[in-house]
C-alpha cells in the first residue's frame, strides 16, 4: 500500500475562483479516491476514479488521473466558502481496503 501526497499543502482563494489540488503516488493502483474533511469532522468521500478512467465529474468537482505520471488532480470550480476544508487523496491497491492518506491540502475559500 502507498501514501498519496497532496500538493499544495495549503491553498487560499476567493469565492468564485477555481481550486486545483494535486496528488502523486508511487506504485500502480486499482483506483484513487478523494475525500474532504471539514474542521472537526470525519472524512467525506467525494469521488473514486478507477485506474482505467482518465476523468470523472461530480457536480462542481472534476478529477483527472494520469497513471503514466502517477498523479491525479482535483478541480473545484466556482468555489464557495463552504468548500473550505482539507482534501485528501487515497490511492488504492490490493484487496484489503487499506487506504493510506497523506497530509492533505487545506483549502480556504474567502467570501
Amino acid at each position: 500500500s502507498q501514501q498519496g501526497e497532496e500538493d499544495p499543502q495549503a491553498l487560499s482563494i476567493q469565492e468564485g475562483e477555481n481550486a486545483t489540488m494535486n496528488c502523486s503516488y508511487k506504485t500502480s493502483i486499482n483506483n484513487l479516491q478523494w475525500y474532504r474533511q471539514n474542521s472537526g469532522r470525519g472524512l467525506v468521500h467525494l469521488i473514486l476514479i478507477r485506474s482505467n478512467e482518465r476523468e470523472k465529474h461530480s457536480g462542481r468537482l472534476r478529477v483527472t488521473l494520469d497513471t503514466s505520471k502517477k498523479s491525479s488532480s482535483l478541480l473545484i470550480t466556482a468555489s464557495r466558502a463552504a468548500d473550505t476544508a482539507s482534501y485528501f487523496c487515497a490511492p488504492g491497491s490490493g484487496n484489503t481496503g487499506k487506504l493510506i492518506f497523506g497530509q492533505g491540502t487545506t483549502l480556504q475559500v474567502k467570501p
Partner: protein
Amino acid sequence: DTAVSQTPKYLVTQMGNDKSIKCEQNLGHDTMYWYKQDSKKFLKIMFSYNNKELIINETVPNRFSPKSPDKAHLNLHINSLELGDSAVYFCASSRRRDQETQYFGPGTRLLVL
C-alpha cells in the same frame, strides 16, 4: 439516521487509565476500520475487520485492542493510556474489503493528561 456513529465524541482521561471507544454502522457493510489522526492531520490506519475477521493490523502498540462482536460494531480498547495517544480516532466502514468507498464516523477526540 447516522450511518457510522462513535461514542464518546470527547474523552479526557489521565495517563495510565484504560478506555474504550465504540463504533457502530447501520449501512450493512462487511468491513470496518479504525484510523488515528494526529495533530498534523496525518490519518493512519490502525485496524480493519471484515465480517468480524481481523484483516489489517498495522504496527500499533499492543495496548490497543480492537474487538468486533458483530459486523456492525467495531470497538477499540486502549490500555495504559499514554500522552502520545492523544489524537482523534475515526471509525469507518465500507461495503466490502477491496478498495470501496469508506464512510467515516464523526471521530472521538481523546486527550490524555
